């Protein structure tokens, strides 16, 4: 399996320096500030899409960098994203049958 060789090189790099992580944290903090600002400032029609987009950006930043998924073995990503994908699929479908999105 080709993943075996990739993983081994990757685990040695292990992503980022402490400064890099602090940078990520600052970006996350800034996005959170922006999210909270939607409570005070009217974003109009952009309100919902921008909040959802920011939520996903934060989610994937934590998962990719803090949890190393970006640098780690692809098998870990597979395990996690199968679960995440299935969760989104089944629950969105179930909510759709309740006419939640209409």
């Amino acid at each position, binding site marked *: 399996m080709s993943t075996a*060789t990739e993983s081994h090189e990757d685990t040695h790099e292990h992503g980022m320096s402490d400064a890099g992580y602090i940078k990520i944290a600052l970006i996350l903090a800034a996005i959170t500030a922006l999210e909270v600002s939607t409570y005070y400032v009217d974003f109009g029609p952009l309100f919902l899409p921008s909040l959802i987009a920011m939520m996903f950006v934060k989610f994937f930043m934590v998962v990719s960098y803090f949890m190393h998924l970006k640098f780690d073995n692809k098998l870990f990503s597979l395990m996690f994203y199968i679960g995440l994908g299935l969760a989104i699929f089944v629950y969105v479908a179930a909510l759709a049958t309740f006419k939640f999105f209409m």
Partner: protein
Amino acid sequence: MAETATHSADHAADHGHSSTGISNNKLAMWLFLGSECLLFGGLISTYMLYRGRVSDGPHPEQIFDIPFTSVSSFVLLMSSLSMVLAVTSAQRKDYSRTNLWLLVTAILGATFVGGQIYEFTAFYREGLGFSTSLFSSSFYTLTGFHGVHVTVGVIMLLSTVGILKKNRATGDKAESVEIVGLYWHFVDVVWIIIFTLVYLIPA
């Protein structure tokens, strides 16, 4: 065909015991987290379905204290930074630093849980009991489940500190810290979703 097979087998053998070259413990943790996605997905969906169904008691937008929750969300988000710093210290075998950052993470986590307890009591005083409405039941169940996860995380962090200090670790120390970290970040990530879907987007 047979030759390539043995070749890759020898290759795997060089990297320790596992066929894929990755750690059993980490793989198990990631599988568990994949599974947890469906657990929290179910609870979040239940809340989304029921958040507007208030037969009695306060509505979500009447009761949520966005500034307060924003602060506690920020505290939890920053605990992810201290956690990742604990992991990198452990990988450098700098265990006193590791313990320091783990403690910081635990304190931030405990602050978040404290905030949640405060929030729950405040809501309860305003008339939002567990069985008041569909909204209240699903809200308390979702955030309560998350709170229990954070509490378990805090206990894990403190235990890790104790185990590292007494040198009672039974496995690779850096890996243990990393696995506790994965759990911790996941709890944070779930809150990122809850904060947006539950608090910021009104019903």
